[in-house]
């Protein structure tokens, strides 16, 4: 009788061990806050990159920069980016001097952290130039 009781205790121990193993592994599966933030950063980064690639693929980006047509550039960015996003675009030359003398932004306030996308834009015309376009993105508040 006492022997059976001892064995029952061992089974309880094994059960408890498995249960704690399960609980720990389940806790490990719960997405951490860091992971969520990383996903949020990746999403914004991806949206920004895709917008810039789309604008550059038809030669529009380099043409607008060469013409210093910042109003049209803001309009293009506005049409490509979701309305729920705040953006600010800065154009640098190869020496990292700012080229746009007016803000290329949709204004408004920002609630979240700001994600910056750097894009290297090469012109396809006869006068070769390389520009660095920095697109800052955030969720609008």
């Amino acid at each position, binding site marked *: 009788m006492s022997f059976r009781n001892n064995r029952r205790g061992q089974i309880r121990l094994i*059960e408890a061990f*498995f249960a704690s193993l*399960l609980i720990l*592994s*389940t806790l490990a*599966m719960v997405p951490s806050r860091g992971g969520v933030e990383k*996903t949020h950063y*990746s999403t914004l*980064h*991806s949206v920004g*990159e*895709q917008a*810039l*690639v789309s604008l*550059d*693929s038809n*030669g529009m980006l*380099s043409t607008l920069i060469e013409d210093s047509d910042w109003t049209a550039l803001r309009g293009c960015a506005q049409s490509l980016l979701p309305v729920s996003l705040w953006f600010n675009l800065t154009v640098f030359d*190869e020496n990292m001097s700012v080229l746009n003398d007016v803000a290329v932004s949709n204004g408004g306030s920002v609630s979240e952290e700001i994600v*910056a*996308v*750097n*894009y*290297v*834009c*090469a*012109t*396809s*015309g*006869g*006068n*070769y130039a*390389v520009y*660095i376009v920095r697109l800052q993105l955030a969720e609008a508040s």
Partner: protein
Amino acid sequence: MGRKAGNRRNSGQTLIITALTIALLILSIVYGVFEAGKRSEMLSAATLNSPVLATKLGLRNTVTSSLVNVSNGGENGILTANLKEYASIVGNQSHFGKCSVLFTVSDASPYQSGMWISWGSDGTGVSSAYANFTLVFTKTESDLQLEHTINITTALNVEGTYTKLEGALKQVNVTCRIFNEGEPALANNITLYYDHDGDLGTQDWIAADSPTITDYGNGTYTISFTAETQTQDDPMLVSAHVYDLRDIFVLANATCTET
């Protein structure tokens, strides 16, 4: 005694059910971990798509710009210089990881320093640039190495016929076909010239006066004009100067056949 036997039977069933439940839970956790890992791998590969596309686009623009320059009188070495500049700037932008651009401009015949300019008298003209690239993307989660080739080519085919009119006047009909990378392409500007004495040695080209240009919208253009050569029997030599939509210049000379 009967109750004890019943308890023992129930205890065995409970153990089996518990074991099954635990096995199921362990399996689902293993599957969950596997799926999460797979999703993470897919995410890191997907985040490289845009930088790869952006770099390829930048290289293409660089090669195109160099060809525009060379076809308009620039030196062949401009392709290497421009690619070096682009590679240096891209290498310094490390927001998504490190990107290295290694390139080789083609020196295989007919290319020289990655350029091939052939503006012949047989009715064909070619302006072309060719370079090979190795793109190396180094990211925290993943590395990627890509081999990439860029060939930008604008080709022009010219053929023409003419009919003798009064005196030294001739009615000339010329057909120009433009191609970008082997596909029909539109022209930005076409200018047609004819040789006054029908002898290429003297190079006395005259711009076609008020030509009628028909654009078929598929890269084919017909140009009709009246020409006056030095004598009635002079052959009709024409020269078509074309800028495509990318501003790449190409020309071709052709001898028209009499109809």
